[in-house]
């Protein structure tokens, strides 16, 4: 086995030092009835060359050559080469959680820089080192809200990503929480309905831009939650935050989201990272790792994991979360991408998405298609009515090499004819023309 160093001579010497005669004897504490005496029923080992071939064959069975207008939470943004180069540094790639800070200043400083970037983008005071993804950070936020307010109800807008809502509902019973949804009206959420629902609620979770790509009246939603004494929690897209106001600037208690847009390939859904940031009032209730600044014995600046009395390895059943392994490598990718963009690049990235998406909307309308929510301002994504079942429209468009979007009927029964179309900076005017042709073809 190429990953093992042990030779027969090593084995003999080691067994002799241990004082047993066979490797099998090392397992003598396992009761006989529980020893597995067969060969594992798995395929024979592959050499590296064979492995490469096998995986190339599997990868070839996936379709990745259609023009991608599919989004709905995961987006086809460009990942810079420097991101890959940094992630392949073995000292970062093959290290673990920095329990021993003197061995891990590189990762610790990177997480501190990541926390800073997330706080800057969201307008918050504290960020954790990452959560699993954009769905689980919503469940984490519910836990914070419950323990901060003592209330047992969570309000989620229906225009929030359906998978986020599903994960919140799956976690809620264990937290002792009830989940209430506020329906959208014409693709956006009515702040008055939020105000009503938020009475006695621990938190209101809404998405900006929402799942339909629509820009919500986010400051009004936050105000409605605050009026009712519930914590406003904004689920946001990092790529939008060069253009759109930071949730902290309009009164949100926490900001969360899926970080894939910054620095990560789509990779069939993961691994990516969820970000979670909050006002300082909630710092000691946050889940997950947090890195803090300190000094070493010589008085020099350094970084360590901090506020660990929140965490499972110290507090056990009283911890704020059970999380241990998080998504640091993917969050690092996000930091590198954001560092390459800078404030100007991030704004331009948002503007290009916005301009191309607007162009796609205009062209589709010119071709006779209707937008599902024509009155609403959107960011990089919008819903278009296809004039027939959206899955059929999708299938027809695919025949022309265009993956036209996400059929909204999967989650919203009234929108069976609508496709959610995402336009990133990677799309071109020519590709948008292809989209229009593919959707207007019948």
């Amino acid at each position, binding site marked *: 086995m190429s990953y093992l160093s042990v030779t027969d001579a090593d084995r003999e010497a080691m067994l002799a030092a241990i004082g047993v005669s066979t490797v099998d004897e090392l397992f003598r504490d396992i009761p006989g009835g529980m020893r597995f005496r067969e060969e594992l029923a798995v395929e024979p080992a592959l050499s590296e060359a064979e492995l490469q071939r096998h995986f190339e064959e599997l990868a070839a069975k996936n379709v990745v050559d259609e023009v991608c207008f599919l989004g709905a939470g995961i987006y086809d943004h460009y990942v810079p080469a420097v991101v890959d180069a940094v992630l392949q540094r073995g000292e970062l790639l093959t290290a673990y959680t920095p329990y021993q800070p003197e061995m891990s200043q590189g990762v610790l400083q990177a997480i501190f820089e990541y926390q800073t970037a997330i706080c800057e983008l969201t307008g918050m005071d504290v960020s954790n080192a990452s959560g699993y993804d954009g769905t689980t950070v919503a469940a984490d936020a519910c836990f914070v809200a419950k323990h901060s307010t003592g209330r047992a109800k969570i309000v989620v807008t229906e225009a929030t990503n359906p998978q986020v809502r599903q994960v919140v509902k799956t976690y809620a019973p264990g937290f002792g929480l009830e989940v209430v949804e506020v329906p959208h009206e014409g693709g956006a959420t009515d702040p008055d309905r939020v105000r009503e629902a938020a009475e006695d609620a621990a938190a209101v979770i809404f998405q900006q831009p929402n799942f339909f790509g629509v820009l919500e009246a986010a400051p009004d939603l936050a105000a409605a939650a605050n009026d009712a004494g519930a914590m406003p929690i904004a689920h946001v897209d990092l790529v939008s935050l060069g253009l759109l106001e930071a949730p902290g600037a309009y009164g949100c208690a926490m900001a969360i989201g899926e970080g894939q847009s910054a620095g990560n390939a789509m990779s069939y859904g993961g691994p990516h990272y969820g970000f979670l940031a909050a006002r300082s009032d909630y710092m000691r209730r946050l889940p997950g790792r947090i890195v803090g600044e300190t000094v070493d014995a010589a008085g020099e600046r350094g970084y360590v994991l901090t506020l660990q009395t929140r965490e499972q390895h110290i507090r056990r059943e009283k911890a704020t979360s059970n999380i241990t392994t998080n998504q640091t490598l993917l969050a690092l990718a996000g930091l590198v991408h954001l560092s390459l963009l800078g404030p100007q*690049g991030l704004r331009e990235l948002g503007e290009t998405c916005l301009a191309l998406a607007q162009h796609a909307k205009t062209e589709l309308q010119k071709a006779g298609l209707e937008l599902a929510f024509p009155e609403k301002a959107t960011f990089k994504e919008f819903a278009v009515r296809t004039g027939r079942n959206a899955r059929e429209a999708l299938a027809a468009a695919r025949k022309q090499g265009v993956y036209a979007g996400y059929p909204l009927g999967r989650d919203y029964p009234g929108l069976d004819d609508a496709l959610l179309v995402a336009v990133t900076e990677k799309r071109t005017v020519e590709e948008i023309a292809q989209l229009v042709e593919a959707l207007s073809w019948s």
Partner: protein
Amino acid sequence: MELIYEKSQAGRRGIGVPQPPDGLDVPDVPAELRRKEPPRLPELAEPEVLRHFTQLSTRNFGIDTGFYPLGSCTMKYNPRINERLVGLPGFAQLHPLMEDEAAQGALELEWELEQILLAVTGLDAVSLQPAAGSQGELTGLMLFRAYFAERGEDEQRTNIVIPDTAHGTNPASVTMSGYKLTPVRTDARGNIDVEDLRTKVDEHTAGLMLTNPSTLGLFDENIEEIERIFHGAGALMYYDGANLNAVCGISRPGDMGFDVVHINLHKTFSQPHGGGGPGGGPIAVREILEPFLPVPVVAREGDAFRLDYDRPKSIGKVRAFSGPFGVFVRSYAFMRSYGPGLKEMSEVAVLNANYMLARLKGTYDLPYERLCMHEFVLSARTLKREHGVSALDVAKRLMDYGFHPPTIYFPLVVPEALMIEPTESEAKETLDAFCDALLAIAREAAEEPDTVHSAPHSRPVKRLDEVKAAKDVVVKYRFEDHPQQVGAPKGA
């Protein structure tokens, strides 16, 4: 070293962005939603960005750098081929919401991975969805609840039994799932204390969470009796797979009686730990729990694969999509590299640990005089008592010898614990060098304790003040304290 924000100079750009084509206007964002203050992201040219993160990497230590025997974390070699495979465009560029017909290769890979997990665990069905071991635990406990709810026993069964050696994740998961914790003691041989256990399992018990081998690196010799006690009381058994690296092809959790198992793909089946993740925590379950698994599950019909969402008894979703796919690519590659040799992998892991234990046990205290499995726990109690040198001091001094320290002060039942897990990846010479270092440090503790107390001496920083970090909390860069650093050239 400077933070990237301190290297920032207004007006610098790292990467260009495609501009809107000629003639396309950028629509106005409504004024009340528009950002007022630009975020203070770093402004550096591309070469400086790359150099910054390269510099950071030189201040870090990974398995590629050297031996990393961090107990309970299974820091094994990360094959570089796996990184190449995960980057294949057919995987990396695949959107997770593609129609199943367009993702057949990904679904086939997931299905094949599940088959290997079933072979290793001896169970009946798998969900790949949980993002890490601790989320696997929580998911498993949700399945417990769903199972008892269907039997009308949900109100009655409120308690989960956990030994005092358990990882902190176990009791934290119990709380998050709405159960109550019932702790059980460890006996003089490092097994669950069966007499204590008998008094704690009754009709209110929903189940057990157990790591076997335990965090002491010991296989529980009473496991057959434990199984009778729980299943006899109508309760379920959860296997924390953190230590599965000890028993692949040697003993299957399903055969030990467990009903749910999580597998830390990032431990047993190798992932780049990335400074704290990503991970993967699939669960394998007995048939009785299969209806409750999260959606979607991968279904096979002939040679075609699909994601099945139509599962009315499902607990729901614990993460987006079918799980962290890139983690599956790497672990499946690792498994296929070994094939049935996964058994030899576990054998060598256990051989390596016992060899080190044999070399060290005369010098450091061994709390349980037994053979170990893939890891072992020593105590620096005597060093502390006689020379004032603690487990922490030993750990810091190991850095000067070029090694990452073991896990320390865990499990909690062993004072001054040093928890050492070599994995199968290491050569005998490496194990010897590490043992030599630990033996040398024990001598230093007697002869020159100040050298040990003040370690490390060779790292980019001296010993760090963790108490200060928790007291004077600084968790992001304070731009306001460094006004000259941002928005204006240095020296201006």
